């Protein structure tokens, strides 16, 4: 069964893609045995490089892909089982998605009102005036106004389009949002606007958010807890401060050391760490698994590595005193 402290719980989820047949068969383990939970009203950040499976994970949770194995629970109910009409309705009512590319994800032949109102229509709201009223209300919440309702997506700038995408996701009043790289296609000054908007809406609606991004500074700023993915696996999960203050998994360390700092005095002498799974781990004798090193700080490691990580944490505490 599922743990009731979590709104969304993912257990041993796998999503493998296969191509070819016979001896040409190729299996890509895009998501491989991933487990984590998201608490109500929490923002869980998922970071990793392109191709690590973070987008696939988000899409498998919301059932844009079917899981290969494993389970996903939402509010105690399993949502990874056989797809029925009833389950689909349950999913779309409770979880909404914001996509990365605000141009591709909006239908160019629909007006903004149709795009945002579609979710209501699907839910059986028939009264046109009612839909209109709620669309306008939503537009205002995301910083657009009434006259935008009759326009088409191409008439908007990137930031405004992303606002439309956010309005579309929120109009059905979902409990949870999966935001897949919502700001990475936007300009710097517009990114800040959208991040601030998401922060405001998060508080207003008490939203639970799964925030997928590759920009570590943005994830740190926006999330309560963070999971780091590497080649389909979750290698470290921790509260934001802990992850950045004491990264334990060598991949997390490498990732953090690669962020270019906007500080000309330190950026040049920064020491970058490399991660090489072959060199950094010896899993020939011991099998790695998710281990809780400190409260709420999980690392994918073998027992001997776990002992070493615990030692690092202990000495860090001492140094702090």
């Amino acid at each position, binding site marked *: 069964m599922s743990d009731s402290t979590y709104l969304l719980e993912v257990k041993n989820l796998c999503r493998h893609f296969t191509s070819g047949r016979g001896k040409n068969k190729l299996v890509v383990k895009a998501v491989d045995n991933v487990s984590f939970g998201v608490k109500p009203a929490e923002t869980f950040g998922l970071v990793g490089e392109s191709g690590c499976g973070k987008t696939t994970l988000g899409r498998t949770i919301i059932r844009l892909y079917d899981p290969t194995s494993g389970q996903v629970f939402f509010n105690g109910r399993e949502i990874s089982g056989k797809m029925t009409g009833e389950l689909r309705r349950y999913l779309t009512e409770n979880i909404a998605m914001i996509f990365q590319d605000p141009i591709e994800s909006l239908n160019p032949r629909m007006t903004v009102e149709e795009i945002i109102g579609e979710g209501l229509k699907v839910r059986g709201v028939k009264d046109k005036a009612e839909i209109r009223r709620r669309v306008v209300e939503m537009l205002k919440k995301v910083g657009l106004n009434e006259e935008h309702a009759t326009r088409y997506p191409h008439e908007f700038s990137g930031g405004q389009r992303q606002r439309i995408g956010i309005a579309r996701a929120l109009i059905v009043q979902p409990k949870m949002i999966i935001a897949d790289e919502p700001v990475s296609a936007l*300009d*710097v000054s517009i990114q800040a606007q959208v991040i601030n908007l998401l922060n405001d809406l998060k508080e207003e609606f008490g939203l639970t958010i799964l925030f997928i991004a590759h920009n570590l500074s943005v994830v740190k700023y926006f999330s309560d807890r963070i999971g780091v993915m590497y080649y389909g696996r979750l290698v470290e999960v921790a509260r934001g401060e802990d992850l950045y203050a004491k990264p334990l998994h060598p991949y997390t360390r490498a990732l953090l050391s690669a962020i270019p700092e906007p500080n000309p005095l330190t950026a040049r002498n920064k020491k970058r760490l490399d991660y090489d799974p072959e060199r950094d781990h010896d899993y020939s004798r011991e099998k790695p698994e998710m281990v809780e090193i400190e409260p709420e700080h999980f690392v994918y490691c073998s027992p001997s590595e776990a002992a070493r990580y615990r030692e690092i944490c202990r000495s860090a505490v001492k140094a702090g005193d």
Partner: protein
Amino acid sequence: MAERDKRDVILQVKDLNVSFRTYGGIVRAVRGVTFDLRRGETVAIVGESGSGKSVTIKAIMGILPSNATIESGEILYGGMDLTKLTEEEFHNIRGKRIGLIFQDPLSALNPIMKVGNQIMEALILSQKMSKKAARQRALELMEAVGIPDVERRFNQYPFQFSGGMRQRIVIAIALAGDPEILICDEPTTALDVTVQARILELINKIKEERHLSVIFITHDLGVVATMADRVNVMYAGKIVETGTSEEVFFEPAHPYTWALLSSMPDLETKERLFSIPGTPPNMISPPPGDAFSVRNRYALRIDFEKEPPLFKITDTHYAATWLLHPKAPRVEMPEALKTRIERMRRRAVGNE
């Protein structure tokens, strides 16, 4: 600082104006850009999309699209004005004396040609090498940009390379002509952070080895801090602030630079982000006065009427804002930015 100033200026852009003819009207993409590049230094141009940074370097490379015209201005290089050269004359400069690295390495490479041959092609065209010599040199270049197993990789196609490796090939091609200036147009924007870090290290390394002068275009301030000696901040086709990296990051003077610096969270940001309201102006009819004034919470009345000149702050640091006029009211940078700069300085001291 004095030592750096003595180094001779290798490229000079003077009051450059570039316009595009479009159906909507004439787009004034670059409006009076002036900067210089000294031997052995890296100059960064920072700005958002549409600020004119890419158009500026396209003008330098002579690869403006056909609907663009250079209205006025000079680009002085090696005793020539590049704006007046014919296409024929440009062939002796482009790729040979000025190399260019594009943002997207996949579209910069020919998908149906082996990467080795693409590097060889550049060598044969620019250096008039024999095929045999070019092959040898291409293999050396591939090794120099950090591609492992060069003999096998030489005969592969671009799709068989990862993004970072493709960008290395593009760098190898840019180096084939043995240029003295390297222009990098957002070379790492499409790459992951760990790959980006490696490519930036590579560019810095070859810059040192070959004594290159680099113009680096980006919108990522972290990348600027890693790479640049001097920084030019562009907004709406103009350079609004220019100075050394330290000056621009620690003593920014233009409200747009303040906004840029404080709009992205760093790893210690907790407070609400400072966001710039609105969107960049339409360059068909840029607003009168300071183009940033409508989005600028510190705008004075004169900002809406009259364009500010570049005010001198130090010998190397200039900013185009009326706030620097002696008669202007004293306006301090936002508090959040001040604490962030304080934090950055402290970190730097702690690291030493």
